[in-house]
């Protein structure tokens, strides 16, 4: 019964823990993923119009950027605690707090991405009869994608790690296991939850990197075209 022993001796690494408590681990991981996905999705939905408004009216840009930066300074434990009277003890507290954090990076990156679109490109699109909406979604947004995705990756990774603090109100995903494990001095549970948490952050980052590559095929074709161009030039020189 070697696998029973590690639960009794309270080892850091314990296969029996993972086997016997797999349901608990799955539930916590799913809650973690759910809270992260909801937060990042809502964050993006809020940040996008905010960035558009800030770009359209310069008067709004200062306060919006200032407010989101101030929110970013507030420690997570305080942020979640302040939202408890508003939402009660529910996952909405954690999601709202995480959305507020995500706005700082997302709004900034969307603004920076849109600002980096060359004016000539815009003029060309307008000349081709593009209206403002088609210009935004057909030309500007695709060109701003690398900056937006960079912001999204930062946001997602830190959201995964911050979700753990939600354990203070019982909605921390893997953080709940950390909290319980700390109280009962259960080492295997703490280490397993920590490792899962970091793995989740790394996987999410890789997934977003993949999405970015799929969404911006032109960045690769250009590189390939460049290579082909070079080959042509080299041939020309050889001839």
């Amino acid at each position, binding site marked *: 019964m070697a696998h029973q022993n590690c639960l009794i001796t309270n080892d850091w690494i314990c296969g029996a823990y993972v086997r016997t408590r797999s349901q608990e681990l799955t539930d916590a991981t799913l809650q973690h993923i759910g809270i992260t996905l909801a937060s990042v999705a809502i964050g993006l939905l809020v940040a996008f119009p905010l960035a558009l408004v800030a770009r359209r009216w310069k008067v709004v840009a200062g306060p919006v950027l200032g407010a989101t930066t101030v929110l*970013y300074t507030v*420690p997570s*434990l305080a942020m979640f*605690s302040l939202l408890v009277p508003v939402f009660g003890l529910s996952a909405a507290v954690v999601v709202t707090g995480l959305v507020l954090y995500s706005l700082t990076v997302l709004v900034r990156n969307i603004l920076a991405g849109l600002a980096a679109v060359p004016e000539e490109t815009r003029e060309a699109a307008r000349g081709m009869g593009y209206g403002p909406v088609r210009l935004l979604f057909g030309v500007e947004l695709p060109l701003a994608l690398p900056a937006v995705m960079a912001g999204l990756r930062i946001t997602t990774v*830190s959201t995964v*790690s911050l979700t*753990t603090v939600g*354990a203070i109100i019982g909605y921390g995903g893997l953080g709940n296991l950390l909290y319980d494990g700390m109280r009962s001095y259960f080492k295997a549970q703490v280490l397993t939850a920590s490792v899962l948490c970091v793995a989740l*952050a790394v996987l999410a980052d890789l997934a977003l990197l993949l999405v970015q590559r799929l969404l911006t095929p032109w960045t690769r074709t250009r590189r390939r075209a460049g290579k082909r161009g070079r080959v042509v030039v080299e041939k020309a020189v050889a001839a």
Partner: protein
Amino acid sequence: MGVIERTWDWLTTGAHWSGTDGVWHRLGEHLFLTAVCLLISCAIALPVAVLLGHVGKGGALAVNISNVGRAVPTFAVLVLLLLSPLGTHGSWPTVIALVLFAIPPLLTNAYVGMREVDRDMIEAARGMGMTGGQVIARVELPLAFPLIVTGVRSAAVQVVATTTLAALAGGGGLGRIITAGFRLTDTAQVVSGALLVAGLALLVEGAFVLLQRLLDPMRRPRPKAAAAPGTAPA
């Protein structure tokens, strides 16, 4: 009575401010831990970053450390340290966790600051016969100063936030008022503690912004550095 009135009552009750569980004591713990950890992490990270930046090596390291710092949950590190053999040594788990989380913004900002110094200026300084040390002290450090202080600012805010989390793991600091409030299911105390913590974080941020303006050796209007927030909140 609504939450706002009860919070006001809590904050204006003198008894909540005195004693070992009182606001003043917790604030003292918070500030002490913050100062000690910030000093230790500056002593570790800044010389390394300045040297690496001067030599021009280790850029990938600086950036990667910053990214790893974002992916590792502060709370997990705190609990892991608490359950490790270190856990029995008072504040050490907290101090180590705080230092670990303060190093990434310090390292990354100081390194980037050193690298962004105009190469021509360094060439000119060398041409004038300055030694490596003189180039660092008289050219690179003054020019990199704004970014280095930005890093210290991010680190300071990070440490204030992390000290709050230490309360979750049984450490001291203002976060204890929040966690104790949760245990007593006293919403007014939870909100009061949260307001105090948020206020302190904003004050520290504000104080550093002010310091940065006053201390900049190159005091002249410069294009605002597009330094995004250094690391995630904790």
